[in-house]
């Protein structure tokens, strides 16, 4: 950022607006994002102490919160903290599955929306996608619980047509959880993909068709490479948000399945052990970022493309 850039910036926005914008963005980034994360990081390296002892001789930096996640309590008979690590891995796998599910579901929709020129019908379609999001997340999760419940619409329907004889436990089998999570982030997948596909020149598809390309070929060679920034931006958001989801797993998760965020929540809330919770949260964040960056590297996506 050179001097000319700043001069141009102030010339265009004026002193008042210019400083206003800078302060607002600065406040957003520093006070709302960086500082809380730093204090979280700081917490994660501290001992869990009652308030009077804070700042005292026992208040020193330690790695024991991280050790706990990996090896469990000191009296743990096993080599590793199997339960928590399993939850962690399962959460990441499940988030990956939700992301793939959303991608498979949303790519055709986004392609259709982006390439169809129909004005009125398209607008209704987009509206139909958006309206359910007026209802808050908790209510939507409970609605899924009802739909997938033992006497819910789906089970009633399956029973009625004799496809099954006893109600299927969608909750226990985590079907409801996947469906709920997938549904919660559909728009975050559709819109970035829709945005790029909308700017794809139709003639390119027709040119490929004219040269004899099949639909799979057209998508593989023309549409998907073009839509890659949108796909990766959608996948990143869906993955991060579903790995960090709390309400949906709380409400829709089966009794045997715990989401890693629920563990974090327990440490902070019922456990009252903020340093331990912070360590768990930091591990989740860092691992998620590493996964996203690795996948981006694998698919040759630049960070800059995602902002497009």
């Amino acid at each position: 950022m050179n001097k000319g850039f700043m001069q141009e910036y102030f010339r265009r926005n004026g002193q008042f607006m210019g400083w206003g914008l800078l302060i607002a963005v600065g406040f957003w980034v520093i006070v709302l994002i960086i500082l809380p994360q730093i204090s979280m990081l700081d917490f994660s390296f501290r001992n869990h102490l009652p308030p009077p002892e804070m700042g005292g001789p026992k208040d020193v930096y330690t790695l024991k919160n991280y050790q706990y996640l990996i090896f469990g309590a000191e009296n743990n008979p096993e080599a590793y903290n199997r339960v928590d690590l399993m939850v962690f891995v399962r959460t990441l796998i499940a988030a990956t599955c939700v992301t793939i599910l959303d991608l498979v579901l949303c790519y055709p929709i986004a392609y259709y929306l982006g390439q169809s020129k129909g004005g009125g019908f398209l607008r209704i379609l987009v509206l139909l996608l958006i309206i359910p999001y007026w209802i808050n997340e908790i209510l939507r999760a409970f609605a899924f619980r009802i739909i997938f419940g033992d006497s819910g619409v789906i089970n009633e329907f399956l029973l009625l047509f004799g496809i099954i004889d006893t109600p299927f436990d969608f909750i226990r089998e985590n079907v409801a959880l996947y469906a709920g999570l997938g549904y919660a982030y559909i728009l975050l997948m559709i819109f970035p993909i829709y945005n790029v596909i909308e700017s794809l020149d139709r003639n390119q598809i027709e040119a490929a068709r004219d040269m004899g390309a099949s639909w799979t070929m057209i998508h593989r060679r023309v549409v998907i490479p073009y839509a890659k920034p949108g796909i990766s931006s959608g996948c990143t958001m869906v993955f991060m948000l579903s790995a960090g989801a709390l309400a949906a797993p709380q409400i829709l998760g089966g009794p045997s399945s715990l989401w890693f965020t629920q563990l974090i929540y327990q440490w902070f809330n019922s456990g009252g052990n903020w340093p331990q919770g912070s360590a768990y949260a930091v591990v989740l964040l860092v691992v998620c970022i590493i996964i996203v960056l690795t996948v981006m590297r694998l698919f040759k996506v630049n960070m800059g493309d995602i902002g497009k």
Partner: protein
Amino acid sequence: MSAGVGVDLQNMWIKFGDFVAVREANVNIKGGEFFSFLGPSGCGKTTILRAVSGFLDPSDGKILIGGNDMAGKGPNERPTALIFQNLALFPLMKIWENITFSMEVKGAGKAERQKRADELLEMIALPGQGDKLPSELSGGQKQRVAIARALCAQPDVLLLDEPLSALDLKLRQHMRTELRAIQKQVGITFIYITHDQGEALTMSDSVAVMKAGVIDQIAGGKAIYDDPSTAFVASFVGENNVFRGKVKSISKGYAVIDTNRTGALRARMATAVKDTLKPGDDAMMFIRPEALNISDKKARSDTRIKAVVQHSEFEGQAYNVFLKGSEDKEMKMSLANRGETRLYDAGLPLILDYDADRAVALPAGELASE
């Protein structure tokens, strides 16, 4: 030149709902011909091209390519290749991948494709540029890549949808010559869509002039220009002075037209209407600006026009003189620059004349709007 594959449109109609985009097109394009559809935007010429390439089906009638009915055949099953107006190169593929995409589709190996790409790059005078991306090329180079990409599929018929319209004037003129040369070299049928009469006249063996879904005339460039068959063609192709009136008399292929403001004027009847134009008909007479001269006073009275200079423009190879005749009838005369120093000042009264063979009499009809 190889015989090439011809294209026939037989009684073809294309309708979108109630809107008739193409009305009863009957066109016979010979193999190896450079054939242009010329018309203003929205006249249906692109629709015809899309029908030939297979992107849409005619509502009625037939399309034959090399004598085979194309009904029910998709764009990939036809021996045609289309060059789009915006070229539609794939921005994320290298030039050589772009050019050989039609081979990739058929499963050709990389080595084979690269070899073919090199040959085609050689042909379009872009050797060694295969590893660039389309965005790294200039407009004219992209143009040539699009042509190479279309030719790579070895089509029998190349369809071009105003591919030069995005280029600047100089490059456009250069590409005209180049396109014509490529067509001569590969010897396949070219069907070219344009609203630019200069392009149509310079490149084509035959031109079809279209207006609102109807083909008015199909002929060689010279015939289109000198012997138009409708008032629309006369006014759309090139510039023309129009004199409206009624046919007064007819003799030996010439008509005397009683014009509304300029008196009786003589003109040759267009070939297409020689047998149908009758005395008393509403008629139009067209004289090209370059067919008007300053009179040497020996001219017959029925090819003479009195007019006063309004203003004149010097265009380099010619002077364009804008005149007003009786009752403010506006005219344009174009005089070749022969090095004379005389300027045509406003207010100068002139007597003009013309050769009746170079004026065309046609039935009154709709003119091309400016």
